[in-house]
């Protein structure tokens, strides 16, 4: 029967069911992924950000909240220019972080040459 309306999906993030394996893999390859304090310096200076929505801060957050599709979309826009590495106040090697993330497939596995760049 068509009621003309249906259950609405929830926008809430349930941390009980988020798969952190991809994030944990990244942390092993680039431990500084943990020390982001979400200041936004990376996003403010990002060459690609204003046109594509790329943001290293949001990539790191999305990985921890199970938002894989958005993370992959953002990563595909990175031009690896390195400006975010220059401005990060905590000295996170964001370039290494992004390159490693690109190597980690969405299922958490890592393609050949894990961790070596």
């Amino acid at each position, binding site marked *: 029967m068509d009621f003309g309306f249906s259950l609405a999906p929830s*926008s809430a*993030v349930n*941390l*009980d069911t988020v798969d952190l394996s991809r994030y944990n893999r990244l942390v092993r390859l680039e431990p500084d992924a943990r020390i982001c304090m*979400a200041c936004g310096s990376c996003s403010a200076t990002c060459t690609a950000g204003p046109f594509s929505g790329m943001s290293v801060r949001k990539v790191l957050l999305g990985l921890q*909240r199970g938002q894989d599709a958005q993370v992959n979309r953002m990563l595909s826009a990175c031009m690896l220019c390195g400006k975010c590495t220059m401005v990060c106040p905590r000295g996170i090697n964001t370039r290494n972080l992004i390159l490693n993330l690109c190597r980690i497939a969405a299922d958490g596995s890592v393609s050949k040459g894990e961790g070596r760049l």
Partner: protein
Amino acid sequence: MEGKPNKEQVAIIGAGIAGLEAAHQLLRLGYAPVLIEQADHAGGHVAEWNRLFPDKAPAAPLVEELLEQTREATLILRAKILSAGRLGDGFNIRLSDGTSLHVRAILMATGFSLFEAWKKEEYGYGVYDRVLTNADLEHWFNTGDDTRIKGDLKRIGFVHCVGSRDVKAGNTQCSKVCCITAIKQAIEMKERFPEAEIWCFYMDLRLFGKKYEDFYIGAQRDYGIHFIRGRVSEVSENIDGKVIVKAEDTLNGKPVKVTLDALVLMAGMVCNRDIQPLAKELSLSIDDDGYLKSRDNIGSVTRSDRKGIFLAGAATGPKTIPETLAEARSAALDIHNFLSGE
């Protein structure tokens, strides 16, 4: 009083660390401090704590050293002040045990109260089986005795700003020490439960003191503590007795929900309302945050606006231990200058 005939007495209300340190300094300056404490032990809140930020130094040696240094002072425990008022050029204080003091200087080292966490009804303190406060956790660190901590904890949450920065709870001030205390306790829980995931829910992280920021980076990098910017809006209990926490992850713009084995509420420092009758008797001003009012908040924090009455420590607002000790020393010197005719 036990034969210290030549030394002038100074009344110190409160034998927490502020009172003890001031007594220590006043002894060295040649006075006979009398510590008046309503509880059955000296050392105040610090005596109940296990370890201290930012070095995780144990609290007990600090309190023991202060007690050792004040052995010569008179310490009256379980004291109840019957009356206090001006008499001649000083003050007369009568206690329930029959003691009567006549002093020219009083130090108010009356400290703070811990916010009563059950007042934030939505957090379920005293109702849910696995919700405890920062003070409960320190008690557990000290004694290992708390039925709310059950088995091997896998998921633990910390709620910052419980009763602080909260107009509805009647406390607009930042309690100052809770961010760093949450980080310390989160690290200590991670050390005890290495497999646990730990989340800190914060509004702002206020890590202003020496070594605090390093402690924070360490919590992230070395212990993998998760920080979620968002105030916890409600807590509930599921059929297994676990705690379900809801908040908004404001950096992500989405609500989050997580099920936890234990939830620790960072109950903040609030003014000690028990001393308000005494403050009234002594005509001391109370600030609009409920704490005792300093003559000013910059150059004269340890002086009240009444002659002969001095202030130290968390009686005037949330303070760290180093700040409290420094104020106690400063107040002791102020009292000395006052009594020796500055």
